[in-house]
């Protein structure tokens, strides 16, 4: 059972890198510190790029869940 509430989720499946990362960045920009954004991504580049960016940008990666269709749901909390 996840202990977080997703404030905003973006389905970026089918979008090519850097699409999903851009969607995540935009959504975080529009969010308050502490809010949680999730992005669904299906491309190989984003799989490594998103966690890497989250770490470098100083936010919290709450989860990276595999979906049935092979996509990944990245759940990120805006930390600053």
């Amino acid at each position, binding site marked *: 059972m996840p202990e977080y509430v997703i404030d905003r989720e973006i389905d970026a499946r089918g979008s090519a890198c*850097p699409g999903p*990362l*851009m969607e995540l960045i935009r959504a975080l920009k529009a969010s308050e510190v502490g809010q949680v954004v999730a992005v669904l991504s299906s491309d190989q580049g984003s799989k490594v790029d998103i966690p890497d960016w989250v770490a*470098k*940008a100083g936010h919290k990666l709450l989860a990276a869940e595999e979906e049935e269709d092979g996509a990944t749901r990245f759940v990120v909390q805006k930390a600053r």
Partner: protein
Amino acid sequence: MTETTAAAVAEQEPRAAAPEPAGKQKMSIILYSGTVDELTAASILATGGAAMDMEVNIFLTFWALLAMKKGAWQDPEQMKVSAEFAEYAPMMMEAVQQNKVKPWIELLREAKEIGDVNVYACGMTMDLFGLKLEDLEDIVTGVQGVTGFVGDARDSAITLFI
């Protein structure tokens, strides 16, 4: 040497560390190529820089400047792919068509949206092709000369020629 001098030398404070550089790290891109594949690569790199909170300065010159003329990016006559890889052009264009890869100009627009990206037109090239700022897409911020570019590039963490 007297004892006091030696003692004074021994007690000398270490030099203060150089102050930390303030502000963002910079990325400079000389964008020279006008082919869709290379413009796309440049736009993605600019996006990466913007995503990592860098100040990205793009200097458009020669063929990249021509590609930045209003409407050129969607004019099939003006869309080119590097000659050596011409056989891949149809595959690439299809990927863009199917929206799998966004057009390079849109990627650049998005990069500007999420971060600090400046696009400057090379004044010399503008004169060469008889162009004015109004002839270019609105993502072009202004005109710059080689001095302006080098001034920024010399303390950029990353400088690229595309």
